[in-house]
């Protein structure tokens, strides 16, 4: 075999702490190495040209590049090989940047280590072989999970691009958090005026199928060919018949149902339409509160409904949709502030969350846009906002910044003054995070034009006293303890991952961070991709984001899907397991262990054997380490390849040990 080795300087990134020239020199002495050199930037155009020329000139069979992590440039160099006419799998990378030059300063040790890594890559490559991808058709339909502003944007862009879109929303209406907001920063335009039309577009778009009150049950398949089972949850109303007239709501006697949309400020009826602008505008029954469903009494809604839409015996239903790509846009949820005993732990009615305050401010909210405090319905004069509640707090496991609460707090302070000109707002903050276009100017306006008092310090406790709340904080700029007697306290609660995010991730086989936010493929260069081909992210399911960022990501994810679907066929990854039919004894152990059900039992001349279904196999290699015969081998990670690497490192004693 003729292997070429290219050792990258990466400017001084590698060359600074690794003697790359020496590594190349030593590499030349390795068996099977026909050529070795160092190169300034392997991934740059001249770098790649150098590789191509060497392959052509020296008729190389394989290439090793010693540079950065394969998670970064493996695809780049595979394409380079292909351009030179070599099979793309005759390639190995030695990670001498992230794993060597960046984590150690001892040049001698680093150089030795780099050489070992090169030798391992060469040894592995000698055991490698050319792999050929198969082509398969793709199903150009896309599933969008979550109907917040990010999901809506993604769905609309895909649909406008001509794709069939399946939009699955957990609640009975799309709109997400944004539909609950009164106005939006930094322009203070009305949230429903800008979101409403988009929601209507979703309803009317011929390419979009909307499943509200639905959740993804199960996902099978692979990029280009997913099968998605969707549970349509029982709403006890036939949505084909319901016209959204609202008669049932008027008459329903169960008026104490939890009002999720209004964040439990007030209550709603057991049968309800989530909010007046809901899409779809359909009624559904909350089974926890319906007298008919609990006690088999009442039945009034069925009597008044002009279209006979009520179906008390409706059951959950499962539908299956074939799609080729998936956009996840499940958003975030809000931190449960009752964990803070010092803020009353939920005991004080006039301590409310920022989202509850949005509902109080909203003209279509439960108070018609009049700010009335929950305890006695009085209009508050002094309002205290506390920032970073459930954010940047290690002690409760939330060390991250939620990103948008500084901004929405300023917005709420401004709106407070608009609503109640003789009110006074105070904001307790630790730092102000406003790095966007017109953002800091917005914060300044809250202070300069609206007279909001910003106090730099955290609040340690609050307690009721004579009908108001004493808020005790620090003004660290003064170096003093301060107290404010407030009529209303609004907690700028932070964002946390959506309820059930980790469960959904497991269905999608994507990873999530310690807090349940989904992991992008690369934090800078692949922000909407995941490590699972065909699954993309949009909006705050990936981490807290405001509306502009969420919308931007929605569009980005849609663009990625359109790119994926711009071809009619995809190439399968040939790094899958393959059964050596001669060695296989048909014990079935691999079938039991494969997490994807990718292995089937076949009959081979009257004998039971195993066979891998290529398109289903994900290439984990669990079967390979299970098979007692070594009959099933994961391509490009075969036993021989890995052992070749081990042998390079560990050959101290008996040359021929045990095999």
């Amino acid at each position, binding site marked *: 075999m003729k292997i070429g080795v290219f050792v990258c300087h990466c400017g001084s990134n590698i060359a600074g702490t690794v003697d790359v020239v020496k590594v190349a020199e030593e590499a030349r002495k390795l068996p099977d190495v026909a050529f070795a050199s160092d190169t300034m930037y392997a991934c740059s155009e001249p770098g790649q040209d150098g590789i191509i020329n060497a392959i052509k000139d020296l008729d190389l069979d394989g290439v090793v590049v010693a540079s950065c992590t394969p998670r970064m440039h493996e695809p780049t160099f595979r394409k380079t090989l292909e351009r030179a006419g070599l099979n793309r799998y005759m390639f190995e990378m030695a990670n001498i940047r992230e794993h060597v030059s960046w984590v150690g300063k001892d040049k001698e040790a680093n150089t030795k280590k780099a050489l070992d890594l090169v030798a391992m890559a060469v040894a592995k490559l000698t055991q490698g072989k050319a792999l050929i991808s198969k082509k398969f058709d793709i199903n150009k339909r896309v599933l969008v999970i979550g109907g917040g502003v990010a999901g809506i944007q993604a769905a609309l862009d895909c649909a406008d691009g001509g794709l069939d879109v399946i939009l699955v929303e957990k609640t009975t209406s799309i709109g997400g958090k944004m539909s609950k907001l009164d106005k939006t920063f930094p322009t203070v335009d009305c949230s429903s005026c800008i979101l409403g039309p988009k929601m209507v577009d979703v309803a009317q778009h011929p390419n979009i199928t909307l499943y509200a009150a639905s959740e993804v049950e199960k996902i099978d398949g692979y990029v280009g060919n997913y099968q998605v089972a969707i549970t349509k949850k029982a709403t006890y109303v036939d949505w084909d018949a319901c016209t959204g007239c609202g008669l049932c709501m008027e008459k329903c006697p169960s008026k104490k149902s939890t009002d999720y949309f209004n964040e439990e400020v007030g209550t709603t009826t057991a049968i309800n339409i989530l909010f007046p602008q809901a899409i779809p505008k359909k009624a559904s029954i909350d089974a926890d509160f319906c007298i008919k469903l609990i006690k088999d009494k009442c039945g009034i809604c069925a009597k008044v409904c002009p279209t006979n839409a009520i179906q008390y015996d409706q059951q959950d239903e499962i539908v299956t949709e074939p799609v080729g790509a998936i956009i996840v846009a499940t958003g975030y949820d809000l931190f449960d502030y009752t964990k*803070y*005993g*010092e803020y009353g*732990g939920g*005991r004080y009615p006039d301590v409310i969350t920022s989202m509850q305050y949005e509902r109080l401010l909203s003209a279509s909210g439960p108070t018609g846009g009049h700010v009335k405090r929950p305890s006695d319905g009085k209009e508050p004069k002094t309002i205290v906002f506390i920032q970073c509640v459930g954010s940047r707090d290690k002690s409760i496991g939330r060390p991250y910044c939620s990103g948008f609460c500084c901004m929405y707090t300023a917005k709420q302070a401004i709106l407070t003054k608009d609503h109640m000109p003789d009110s006074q707002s105070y904001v307790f903050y630790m730092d102000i995070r406003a790095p966007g276009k017109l953002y800091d100017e917005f914060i300044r306006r809250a202070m300069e034009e609206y007279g909001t008092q910003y106090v730099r310090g955290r609040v340690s*406790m609050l*307690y*009721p*006293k*004579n009908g108001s709340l004493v808020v005790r904080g620090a003004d660290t700029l003064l170096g003093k303890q301060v107290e404010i007697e407030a009529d209303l306290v609004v907690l700028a609660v932070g964002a946390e991952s959506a309820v059930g995010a980790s469960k959904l991730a497991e269905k999608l086989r994507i990873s999530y961070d310690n807090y349940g936010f989904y992991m992008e493929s690369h934090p800078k260069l692949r922000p909407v991709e995941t490590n699972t081909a065909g699954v993309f992210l949009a909006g705050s399911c990936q981490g807290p984001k405001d509306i502009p960022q969420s919308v931007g990501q929605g569009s980005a994810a849609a663009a990625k899907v359109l790119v994926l679907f711009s071809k009619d066929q995809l190439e399968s990854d040939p790094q899958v397991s393959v059964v050596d039919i001669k060695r296989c004894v048909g014990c079935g152990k691999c079938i039991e262990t494969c997490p994807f059900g990718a292995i089937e039992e076949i009959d081979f001349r009257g004998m039971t054997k195993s066979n891998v279904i290529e398109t289903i196999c994900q290439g984990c290699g669990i079967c390979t380490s299970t098979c007692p015969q070594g009959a099933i081998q994961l391509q490009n990670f075969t036993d021989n390849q890995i052992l070749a690497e081990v042998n390079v490192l560990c050959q101290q004693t008996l040359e021929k040990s045990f095999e």
Partner: protein
Amino acid sequence: MSSSLSYAYYPGCSGQGTSIEYEQSSQAVCKALGITLQEIPDWSCCGSTPAHTVDHTLSAALSARNLGQAEGMIVNGVITPCPSCLTNLKTASHRMKDETFRAKTNALLEKPVNNTLPIMSVLQVIYEQVGPEKLKEKVVRPLTGMKLAPYYGCIMNRPPDVMDFDDCENPIAMDRLMEALGIEITPFPLKVECCGASYGVARKDIVMHLSGKLLDAAEDCGAEAMVTACPLCQMNLDLRQGQINSANKTNHAMPIFYYTQLIGMALGLDEADLGMKKLCVDPGKAFRKMEARKAEALEESVVRRSGN
């Protein structure tokens, strides 16, 4: 039953003096509830705050000597009524989980300590082992009509990972026990605020300020008396109430009970065993108000019944 509720008992120094009524009533109540207290033989002072302001090993050693004295006793743990002693014992035990610290502490001691016994307050044992329900069954003289502000003090539940009992911001153990006696608990917001601790002597102004705030807050929320679980709190609020009044120009006359005294009353124990007379602010007023309210309620229910 009694053997399962058997504890090594650490009374603490103030139980012999300024908080003698706490000591007496704790003993009496435990006895009535079937909790056996075996006094730790020849116990010594835990060092209280002054010791840990000098050095942590010294402080731990003073506490640990007592833990050592309790080792070998056949008990479920060490208990004490005083939160200050409790903090010291628990902190010592907590820190001694670290090998080096334990070695350093043991080096100061005559005999090394194994540090195996759990440590609790008497309150925790009554709350968790007896519980409000069982306590309620035993009440013979309900204290219905009494309105109390429950005050826990700053260190009974803090810091939570060392003290490991009840809620550190809004503790409820005493609330529930008092409610079991028929008492109405007012929502007292300053349950865990500091009363001024041991600064009564050296910096009286601090205690006047902090304890004064507590009395004001209790009055604000309509309490007619306060109930505490700490000798220092009780002393600052009760014994120094006169000083507070003159310093702050207030005229509080707020009786300050130990929770054990009230449990004892409700269980029908002898008042003399509960040290009621030893309180500084006369508690009679609270009881008279209670009786008046009881009578009122009775009258009301009679009226309502005849009205129907």
